[in-house]
């Protein structure tokens, strides 16, 4: 059951430029594992060494922050839209 995951522009070099990629998994944690197998390096940009979502990144399911759902155990199903939203800053040069 593929789930669409929206990739923010700063992480798209890990997805070959794709804005949206498919992944499978019943929970966000499982989805992250699947994403990593398809796009190596992606998970470590989103999760820290303990597997928790980094503090400058948020993950949303259908527009809702997983921190206010069941965090990494939040259930996902086909048709859900998962978005990764990083803190951004730029333009120093």
């Amino acid at each position, binding site marked *: 059951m593929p789930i669409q995951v929206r990739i923010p522009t*700063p992480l798209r070099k890990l997805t070959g430029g794709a804005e949206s990629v498919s992944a499978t998994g019943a929970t966000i944690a499982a989805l992250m594992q699947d994403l990593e197998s398809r796009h190596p390096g992606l998970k470590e940009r989103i999760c820290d060494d303990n597997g928790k979502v980094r*503090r400058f990144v948020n993950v949303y399911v259908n527009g809702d922050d997983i921190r206010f759902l069941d965090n990494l155990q939040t259930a996902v199903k086909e048709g859900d839209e998962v978005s990764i*939203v990083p*803190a951004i800053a*730029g333009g120093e*040069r």
Partner: protein
Amino acid sequence: MAEALAAAGVGRLVLFDADVVELSNLHRQLLHRTADLGRAKVDSAAAKLVARHPATSVEAHRERLTAVNVDMALAGVECIVDATDGFEAKFLLNDAAIRLQIPLVHAGVVRFLGQVMTIIPGESACYRCLFGAPPAPGDVPSCQEAGVLGSLAGTIGLLQAAEVIRYLSGSGALLTNRLLTYDALAGRWRHVRLRRNPACPACA
């Protein structure tokens, strides 16, 4: 964005920036001219703003806001606009806005991605409710390697100006408890819902 605010009749603008105009700024910082290269950004910007909008008072402070000076610098303004270029400054402004109870219109841009949100202290989610801490150096691409699309900076800056105008005039709905993201590569606008974090280190 300062231009849009002055044009809308905002009576007083207070600018803070310690940098001088560089060639690499000109694609997105539209107040500066090639002849301004090397001039203090706040002086260059203030000169253009005043020339076009003489009724607006523009205070130019050639200094970087820090934990030491930020509260004194911002006290008394009606609204804070974050047009900074680094995470440290964004968290600094957020925390100062919460302490001073002054609304903040936050934005960030990098490459082709822009974000805007408005923070009403004590009422809506703040930047730290959304992101607990800035990334460590090396966790995200540096600005030099990432860059930013010039027109995206303008798009996001004008959205911030619209937020300020709505706030000052008390009309319409602000971007509170929602983050607007604009992907200038895919041409896609999206919102995500935000909530105040009951354990927020800044505003809880």
